[in-house]
């Protein structure tokens, strides 16, 4: 019987694995802040030190902190690594599915990132860069939509993992994901600055629901109910595809192994 405890044990293990490299991650956080700083300076150069400019700073830095939860997830949810070293065969013997195992393994990583990457970057941005705190009524809606965004991001990354089962190498598809994430998620540009036809297109793709929508909820610019419903529509759709694709691909892999 699969229960949540097995999953949490997996999550705990990946959390502890990340902890070993805390010092590296501190250096990495400084790198992330520099990237955020560059984007902020570009926007301040065009918008000036105005209300609109400072809103852009808040928008960019909240997203920069959130990147560690919705964009920089382990490549293909650790699956490509397992395909590469052959340990994917053992995954098939486990009492839970690949999708279930991957979710909790990534969850541990995300909890780690939230505590040691997102929070420090966010707090620094508030203290040193003038990032505005959310209205108290927006905190919970933000955290809920961010969590939904994390699930969507997990499912997209999981597809990259499945890709590695079929095609082995993920470098190219990982870059395509980076392209789509950069351009369509709104993590580096508020969607209001896109031409309207382009924004329309972007809102019909899942990426905006990982970055733009949660941050717009944070800033009180997006209706929470609408955000929640759209996000869960995406989660349901992506989950169904992931569920069926997993079944097909892992069955094929078993034949190869036999």
């Amino acid at each position, binding site marked *: 019987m699969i229960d949540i405890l097995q999953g949490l044990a997996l999550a705990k293990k990946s959390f502890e694995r990340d902890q070993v490299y805390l010092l590296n991650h501190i250096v990495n956080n400084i790198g992330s802040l*520099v990237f955020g700083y560059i984007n902020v300076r570009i926007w301040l150069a065009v918008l000036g030190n105005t209300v609109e400019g400072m809103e852009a700073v808040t928008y960019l830095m909240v997203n920069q902190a959130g990147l560690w939860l919705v964009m920089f997830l382990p490549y293909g949810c650790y699956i490509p690594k397992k395909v590469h070293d052959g340990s994917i065969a053992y995954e098939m013997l486990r009492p839970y599915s690949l999708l279930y195992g991957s979710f909790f393994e990534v969850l541990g990583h995300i909890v780690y990132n939230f505590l040691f990457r997102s929070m420090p970057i966010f707090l620094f941005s508030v203290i040193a860069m003038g990032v505005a705190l959310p209205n108290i009524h927006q905190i919970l809606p933000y955290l809920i939509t961010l969590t939904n965004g994390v699930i969507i991001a997990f499912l997209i990354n999981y597809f990259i993992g499945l890709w590695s089962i079929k095609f082995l190498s993920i470098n190219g598809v990982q*870059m395509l994901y980076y392209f789509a994430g950069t*351009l369509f998620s709104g993590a580096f540009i508020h969607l209001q600055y896109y031409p309207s036809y382009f924004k329309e297109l972007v809102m019909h793709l899942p990426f905006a629901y990982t970055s733009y929508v949660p941050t717009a909820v944070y800033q009180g610019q997006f209706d929470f109910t609408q955000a929640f419903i759209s996000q869960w529509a995406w989660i349901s759709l992506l989950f169904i595809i992931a569920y069926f694709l997993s079944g097909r691909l892992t069955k094929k892999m078993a034949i190869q192994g036999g």
Partner: protein
Amino acid sequence: MTLFVTLFKASLKSDAQYKFDFVINIIGNFLGLFADFLIVAFILLRFQSIDGWELHEVALMYAIVEFGFGVYRFIGDGFNNFEQLILSGKFDTLLIRPAPALVQVMLQKVDFKRLGMILQALAVGIWGLSNVNFISTTYYIYLPILLVASVAMNLAISILLAAIAFWTGKNEDIIILGHYSTRKAASYPATIYHSIFTHALTFIIPFFTISYYPLLYLTGKSKQILFLIAPIIGVLVISFLAYMVWNTGIKRYSSTGT
């Protein structure tokens, strides 16, 4: 040179073996970084200029930096993954071979998928060039020099940062901070940043000497002729520094051996 040709052929053969993957890789590498530029293009289409720099001029600045980065990843990917050589102990075997370790690390593999990066930089650069109004025949002689300087700059920075692994073991995060973030910063005019940051990119990791300063002169924003030789000074200084740090690192590394 023979060594390089042999390696070149072997790498191409191994990469082209899986055609579908090869094509996806090239496309992924083309689009992956291009997204960063598209964001800036969207900003500039709306706001016309960043601190007096028009879109086509920023495109040129971006293309020079990215071209050097693409070529470096094409021929010098060994430096990017140097920590793996150190952590796995494979670096020891390079030291007992007759060729210099530096050359051997560089020639670990010619990474053909990076052609996509080079192509996107060239595409953006040619588009930028064909739309700027400052260009004259003399500049056509100077611009290739800038591209070569950019390759040399990227290589030297990567060697400098790779050498840090002799002391720290892992250095992936230092590379992101010292190379990736500074490279992104160098794609935009220096005036948008705080002066400390500008000084760091002029005197410590001198990326601005191959992008901002020469273009400042070429676009007629400054009459300071020194800016035209800035790339040569920048490359010479950083190369010397990289060479010194690398040699010190190797000496330290061998003395801690068995």
